[in-house]
């Protein structure tokens, strides 16, 4: 079977494709039903049920424990093994996930669900070749004529085929993702056009902007910008925006590639400069992060913030740091956790380690400056906050924090200058920070007061706030 990444769509047409598609749909349904029946015979319902219930209730650690018991109790149950693997993957226990996916695959090599999950897991950890191999095997489970249609039917027939065979659309979409993550945007776009995921002549970028303006669900907006990236190679703004979103969410690898692409295609020198700066201060410059390390970071963050699972999060953050020692974000979260536990010195140490790993990390300087300020170590705070606004001049919150630190040291002229700059910047964004204005007015009128100036962190730069 040819590699899925090199699928060439023929321009030939055939008749009665709708009939064929319907037949395929029935066959697929039967196939899946049979697989489920086969596995259901050995299900240990109690622990699996408990795992499901716990997961749905958001008790993820408990869900994993129950899934482990279920798999231990029924080592030949494909469903139990897959459930354990899925929960382990969800919790960032990737070695365990891999082991149990493998066990499930050994028991049911042609199980569509197992193949699909295994492929998805492989993408998560950056094992793209394995993912593609699994997708090939998944495709091979489909009847010959479906495969034939999938590979050779003209583009205008593909929407119907994919609609009638959602598994085929999964295959296409995952392949597109793999291509994008590997940096082969041209091939990803080709595939998207070949399967009519995007169509020539559509203004996806305008559509995405419209969705955003109209307050559509985030997921819809996100999808719309992805389509713009695939369907409009010249839509630099949308590509750039898509990259920023990905980076905000923690998908730094793909985000980085998209920001690079948006920067490349934008005709504006200012945008090119902005993109280059973004890469340097937000995405580690030339320091690339492995996919596994990125995903461990993402999941660790969830385990900490969503589940309150500090021990689990710490382990995953540390593993992420071990795999990608120049990736700044896990250091930042280790510092946040240390601070959360009341260990501010520990937090300082983590941030300083993070700076050694990535000296241009805007976020690390910012956090370090604020932490020093909290500790009333103002000269050190000033140094890092100055660097913060030097790296990113539009960081009004960082500038207000700097202004406060300057005030605390009696550098009143510098304070006023920085505070006024921030206030003027924020006024452009309908973020008037009245408390700062009020403070400045009193300062102008009466000279320095006893209390330190307020240093709000306006939401206007919130997209930068969650590295």
């Amino acid at each position, binding site marked *: 079977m040819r590699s899925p990444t090199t699928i060439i769509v023929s321009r030939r047409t055939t008749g009665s494709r709708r009939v064929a598609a319907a037949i395929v749909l029935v066959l697929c*349904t039967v196939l899946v039903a049979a697989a489920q029946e086969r596995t259901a015979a050995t299900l240990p319902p109690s622990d699996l049920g408990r795992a499901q219930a716990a*997961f749905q209730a958001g008790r993820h650690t408990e869900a994993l424990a129950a899934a482990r018991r279920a798999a231990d109790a029924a080592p030949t149950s494909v*469903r139990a093994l897959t459930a354990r693997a899925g929960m382990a993957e969800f919790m960032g226990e990737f070695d365990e996930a891999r082991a149990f996916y493998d066990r499930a695959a050994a028991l049911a090599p042609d199980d569509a669900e197992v193949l699909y999950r295994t492929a998805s897991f492989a993408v998560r950890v950056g094992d793209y070749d394995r993912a593609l191999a699994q997708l090939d095997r998944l495709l091979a489970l489909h009847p010959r004529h479906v495969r034939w249609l999938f590979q050779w039917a003209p583009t205008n027939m593909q929407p119907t085929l994919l609609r009638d065979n959602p598994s085929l659309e*999964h295959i296409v979409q995952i392949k597109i993702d793999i291509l994008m993550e590997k940096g082969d945007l041209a091939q990803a776009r080709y595939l998207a056009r070949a399967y009519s995921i995007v169509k020539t002549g559509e203004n996806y970028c305008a559509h995405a902007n419209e969705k955003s303006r109209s307050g559509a669900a985030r997921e819809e907006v996100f999808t719309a910008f992805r389509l713009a990236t695939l369907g409009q190679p010249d839509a630099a703004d949308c590509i750039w925006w898509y990259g920023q979103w990905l980076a905000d969410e923690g998908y730094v690898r793909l985000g980085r590639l998209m920001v690079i692409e948006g920067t490349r295609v934008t005709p504006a020198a200012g945008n090119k400069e902005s993109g280059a700066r973004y890469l340097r201060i937000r995405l580690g410059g030339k320091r690339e992060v492995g996919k596994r390390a990125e995903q461990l970071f993402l999941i660790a963050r969830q385990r900490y913030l969503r589940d309150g699972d500090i021990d689990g999060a710490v382990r995953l953050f540390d593993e992420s740091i071990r795999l990608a020692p120049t990736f700044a974000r896990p250091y930042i979260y280790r510092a*946040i956790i240390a601070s959360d*536990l009341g260990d501010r010195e520990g937090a300082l140490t983590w941030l300083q380690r993070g700076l050694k790993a990535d000296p241009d990390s805007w976020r690390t300087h910012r956090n370090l400056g604020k932490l020093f300020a909290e500790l009333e170590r103002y000269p050190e705070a000033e140094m890092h906050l100055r660097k913060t606004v030097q790296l990113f001049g539009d960081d009004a919150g960082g500038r207000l924090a700097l202004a406060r630190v300057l005030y605390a040291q009696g550098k009143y002229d510098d304070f006023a200058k920085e505070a006024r700059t921030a206030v003027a910047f924020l006024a452009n964004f309908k973020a008037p920070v009245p408390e700062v204005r009020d403070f400045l007015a009193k300062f102008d009128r009466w000279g320095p007061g006893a209390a330190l100036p307020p240093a709000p962190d306006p939401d206007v730069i919130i997209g930068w706030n969650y590295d």
Partner: protein
Amino acid sequence: MTDRIGIALLLGTILALAPDPSAAETYRWVDGQGNVTYSDRPPQSQDARTPAPETRPASALPAPMVTPASAAMPGPTAMPVPAAMPAPEARPMPEAKPAPELKAREVTAPEVKAPPAKVPQAKASVPPLAAARTSPTKVDELLELSGLKAQLVGLLSRIAGELRPAPGQMSTSDQASVDRVLGQGLRHEAVYALVRDAFRLQVDRPNLEATATWLRSPVARKIVALEVASSEPGTEPQVATYAASLKASPPAARRVELLQRLDWVTGAHETSADIVAAISRGVSTAVSAAGQPEQRLRPGQIEDRAAQVRARVNEGLREVRMTSMLYTYRSLGDEELMEYVLFSGSDAGRWYNAAMRKALVSALGKAVEQTSAELVRTVPLERWARAAMSAPPPVK
């Protein structure tokens, strides 16, 4: 010349600390010049080209999945995954919130109105004027001149009142235990000692002497006497009456300006907010430590709560403080008030206010934490919870 707390604002702020979720979305785009720009609302103009939702997600919003494409995918139908189990690419991961909701059950302390405190009362009087002297001023002398001890009486009485359950909500024996603990833990002598110890750490001899000189001046004596008088327990009705009278005869603009300036140079308003935050921190720490291990708050969570309380109280205090200052200094002339402002803005005044602020915040936080810990040791949390549940709903 210590600051008085806006005690009325304590109730419902120290213990009712649920954060206000921010639902606002933030948008960001690249403008025509290529600058990354931001707004808290969707772009309205042609310049706003690439709006972005905020990074901090709404709680119900799933994050992108392992593969961004998958985020856009409908649920598989031909190749389903078991209905209730997490598919590996499933997106049950709402994006992390920087300020997560607490997982632990909210630890509630009694949130009840209380009768006047029964802490031992010291006579709230004007400190005696020290004789003219040549030897260095001691910290105790300075604090005596400042009227701190007398003002602590009123302040601690109010704090005790906030911590005491209303009559009938606890058994007689529990109520008696609470009164005993409050009486012991919030003794003004003990808290004064804490303040003094914290103040000593910040002594700057020239500034201390300059402050003492000011405090011995006739104007300062008058001011201290007024502050002590208005800090005495039971003055609230008089302040309320005075506040009501302001509607009919509002203060002169110059008076208001002077008091605003006084607040500015002393930082009194900020000190009040800091004290409220310290009390919140102390109560949260003690009550959390008495709870089940899995329900305990982490230090960072306690700090977050204290910061939230501070922010909430800060604005509310503004008006209360102005009324309170108008009342306290009502018999003081503008020129006298101006003298106070000038001293407070001097190096010595700035040092004194900063040192007093730190000392007060530290001492009151410590005293409240220790007292709260003793309260929940003496009367278990369950009984506090029952007492709180039996409290009548707050009057709206």
